[in-house]
Structures are given as C-alpha cells and as structure tokens.
C-alpha cells in the first residue's frame, strides 16, 4: 500500500488541563476525501490545527506523506504540501484580491526572505497571479480590498491563494459555513472537481456537503474517535445516530440522504 497522505498515531491535545483530543489515530490514503464530523466541541477544529501545526500535539505523532511533522512549525508543514483553510476565510482584509494571491505566489521566491527585487517588476509572478485570478473568476474584483468582498468571494480568494501553492493535502475547516443555501450545490460541485491527486480532509457541519463528497467519514465525539467508515457505514452506525447524526440531519439538512 502507498504511503498514507496523513497518519495520526495516538494524538492527544491537552489545553490548560482540559483534554480536547484523546488518543486519536487515523490514516488517510493519498487522493482520499475524508470528512470529520461531530457535534460542536468535539475537537474537530483543534484536530485540524494540530495537523496543520498551529497547535502542538501534547502526545502522539503526525506523519504527512511519510514524513514526521509532529514538531514542525506550521510554516514548515507547507513545504510538504499541507495547507489549511479557516472557518473565517484566512485572507488579508486590507490587501486587494491580487495582493492576496501575490503573497501566496511569492512565498520563498527570490531569496529565502524575499528581500530581492520589486513585486511589481516581477513579470513572471504578475502573469501567474493574473492566471490564478482568471481561473477563480476573481479578475473583476482583483484590485478591490478583500474586506469589501462578500463572504463567498472571500472564501474563493482564500482557496485560490492556497491552490496557488499546489497543496497535496488540503484541510478544509467548515468551508460551507456562511454560504447561502442556494450557493451550496455549486460549492459541492467545486469540491468534487478538485484534482484527484489531492488529498482532502474536510470538517463540515452540512451533512449535505459531507455525504455527497466524502469517501470516508470519521466521527469525533468528546475528543475521541467514535466511528470511522464509509458514508453508508456511518449512516447505519447506531452509536453515531444516537450521538450526533440523527439530530444533525433532522436539524440541518432534512431529507438529504
């Protein structure tokens, strides 16, 4: 079997004496679409932050494409192709859309610190930014400060910036949150079009998004893995039904399955 895209071995996270994540082990294969679901406070976002390196794991190990990254800071994990989006789109509000894309494209260019050359004179990078903007339908808003853009656009800027860095493992933290109901089908389509050589780990409350996208689903409950399986298995799992799914389905996306 191929080297897993993501492997967690007995990962725990304790913050201020409170155990947020307890002994989490999971393996995500290359190209897989994995959803992580669970009630509020189950530790989903914390788990993504531990994987991305924004929070250090208290115990356990994290491997990405066979490389141990447990002790690496977040910015070094980008080197192995790991990128993450935020619940609130991680964009620079006072910068224009174009500058947001440029900042991603310019990472590590020129010298390690980027102290060489002027941004506006760098033809190659400007051309690539133009391409990215076009690809994501952002040309019309390219010179507008991102804070003036509606939420859906900000999300697009965020994703475009991450894709500019060619992620191999993409962590999406509630990407559908804040989208209007009628925007969700288009969003699911966009997710489905992600290249198959990219591994995606998705934390999402919208069961509609989860069940139409994920190959496998991990259910977190009180910081521990409650169940792990294909969407069908998860739907039929009584424990999951009791703990979360029934309520979540009834409450949020009635009649999707």
């Amino acid at each position, binding site marked *: 079997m191929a080297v897993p895209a993501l492997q967690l071995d007995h990962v725990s996270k304790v913050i201020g004496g409170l155990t947020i994540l307890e002994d989490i082990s999971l393996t995500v294969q290359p190209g897989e679409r994995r959803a992580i679901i669970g009630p509020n406070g189950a530790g989903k976002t914390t788990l993504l932050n531990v994987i991305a390196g924004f929070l250090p794991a208290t115990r356990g190990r994290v491997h990405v494409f066979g490389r141990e990254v447990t002790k690496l800071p977040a910015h070094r994990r980008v080197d192995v192709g790991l990128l993450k989006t935020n619940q609130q789109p991680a964009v620079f509000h*006072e910068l224009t859309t174009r500058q947001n894309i440029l900042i991603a494209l310019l990472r590590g260019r*020129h010298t390690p610190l980027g102290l060489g050359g*002027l*941004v506006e004179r760098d033809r190659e990078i400007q051309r690539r930014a133009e391409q990215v903007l076009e690809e994501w339908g952002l040309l019309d808003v390219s010179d507008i400060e991102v804070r*003036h853009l509606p939420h859906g656009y900000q999300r697009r800027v965020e994703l475009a910036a991450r894709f500019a860095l060619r992620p191999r493992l993409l962590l999406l933290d509630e990407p559908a949150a804040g989208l209007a109901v009628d925007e969700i089908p288009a969003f699911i389509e966009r997710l489905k079009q992600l290249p198959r050589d990219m591994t995606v780990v998705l934390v999402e409350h919208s069961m509609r998004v989860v069940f139409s996208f994920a190959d496998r689903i991990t259910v977190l409950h009180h910081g521990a893995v409650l169940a792990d399986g294909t969407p069908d298995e998860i739907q039929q799992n009584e424990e999951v039904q009791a703990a979360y799914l029934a309520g979540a389905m009834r409450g949020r996306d009635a009649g999707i399955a």
Partner: protein
Amino acid sequence: MNAKSITAQWRPAAILGLLVLLLIAPFVLPTYPLSVLTEILIFTLFAMSLNILLGYAGLPSLGHSAFFGTGGYAVGLLAKYFGTPAPLALLIAVGAGIALALITGPFVLRTHGAYFLILTLSLTQVLFGIVWLWRRVTGGDDGLPGIPTPKLPFLLGRVSDTANFYYLTLIVVGIAIATIAWVVRSPFGLALVGIRENERYLEGLGYPTWTLKYVAYALAGGYGALAGGLFAYFKGFVGPGQISWLLAGEGMVMVILGGAGTFWGPAIGTILVLLLRYEVSAFTQRWVMILGIVFILTVLLLPQGIVRLPNRIREIRAQLRREAPLPRPTAPAHHTPSERAVEQVIERS
C-alpha cells in the same frame, strides 16, 4: 483605482522635482531654515525606520529611540575616543543598531500589541539608565559634547558649513530612504503587511513569520541608528535625551500623524511636528498643546494619516457631485469606488 494610477504616473516626476528642490535649497534658504531642513531629513529617516515596524509589520514600538541613541553614542564615542572618520563611524553606528536589535529581538518579539509596546519602552529605559549612570564613558547627563561635524571634502570652501553638512545628510538619508523604498516594495515588504494583517494566516501560507519580524526589527534598528548617528554629528553632541522614550513617542506621533504604513506619511508627519516645534514655538510656548490638538483631529478625521488628505478631499467632492448628503455610516467614504465595483460584480453574477 484611477486616482491611484494617476498618482503612480506622476510619482517619478514628483520625486525628481522634490530632489531638485532639496538640491537647490542651500542657495535659497538662510542658515537657520536650512538647519531645520537638515533636522527634518534626519527625523524623516528616523520616522521611516520606525514605520517599518509600526506601519508595515504592525509592531507598535515605543522604544525606537534606543536605536537612535545607540547610533548617536556610537558616533559620539568613536569621535571622542578614537577620532574615527565619519563614514566608518556611521557604518559602525548602523552595525551597533542592528546588533542591539538582534540581541533584544528574541525577547521583545515574543509579544504583540500593548505588550510589545511596553517591552520596547522598557528596553529604552534600561539603555537610558546605563547611559545615565555610566558617567565615566558616556558622560552621564552631561553627554558627550564636541563631536566634530564631518564635511564633504569636494564642497569645502564652496558652500557654507551648514550647507555642507546639509548635503552630506541629504546624500546619506537619500540613499537610506531609497533602500527603504526597495525593502517595502519587495516581497519581504508585502509579507510584513501580511504579518500586520494576520500573522497566523501568513504562517499558514508557509512564511516563517518570526524570522521576518526579526529581520524587520534589525533593519529598523539599523536605519534608526543611522538617523541617530547623523543627529549626533548635526548637534555636535549626544546626550541621554537622544535615547529617552520621549523621543520614541515623538517618532510614533510623526508616523501616525503622517500615515502609518504609507511610504511618505512619516516624512509628512516629521515635517509637521518639526515645523510646529520651531515655527509655532516662536509665537507661543504651548506648541505641544497645538501638536496634541492636531494629532487628535488627524486621528479622528483622517485615521490613515495626513498623507490621505488629497484622496479624502477628492472623495468628498465626488460624493457631493453624486448628491449623497452624508457619507455612509457603516463604511469609510474613501472606499466608495471599490464598493461600487463590488456591487456591479455581484449584480452581474
């Protein structure tokens, strides 16, 4: 957007014009205004160096005088004890400023916001204490007087001494400002703005944010020390006043008044503060009070600094033309053009 491109078009011409004015100034201005102009140049460099931290990287330093003073004392000590020639002394001053930043950076850069402000302030106070107490070397509160003013050899005898040092300052500050322009427009400069906006997001894009801040701090320290070194030559004296946190606060006022995070803002702020100090003080002792009022009005009416005044006027006029009686309360008026563009895009999609 249009306004921006017009500004960009005229920028080279404006800079050239400014340079010509600065070059002929000694032939037009009497001695006293020329020395005020020299001081403006030096403090512009000081404010611009602080702006790298405060404006671009969003690190509110209230200890930038530590670097200014370090540069000043480096020049003073070298001139007094070793008779070091000015070019070398200024280089060593820059090195001392960078070294101080590299040593103190790991401590102060652990913090953000108000904590950063307090730590940088304490750093200045510690240095102030050392300078004050180490009388044997630093002269204590008497400082180090009698620093000889360096002169450009090729201008000797052709212009007055004041004009000679003015040209020397113009060359040094001009080169320094040009390199600052290059730094802030490089990918590094854009990354600093990213740190100001959201350090964590920038880290998530793979930037080593701590290292970037450390380098920015060292650069700001180097430029700040260069300004301090020049000032010591300018006054022929260096004393504890040049390392005091009051000076750091004044630098902060200059940057914020003119426009933090803009390139020319700190220069405008410096001109304003120094003109108030030297011109208004001729009429009233209360120039600091007037400065305070100007500062409050600026922060309230032009939160992005005086450098934005032309834009602001243009927007207000544009608004009047569209017969909008008042700016929309939710968003600052100067973003109206972009908001309109957004609305168009939304309508289209």
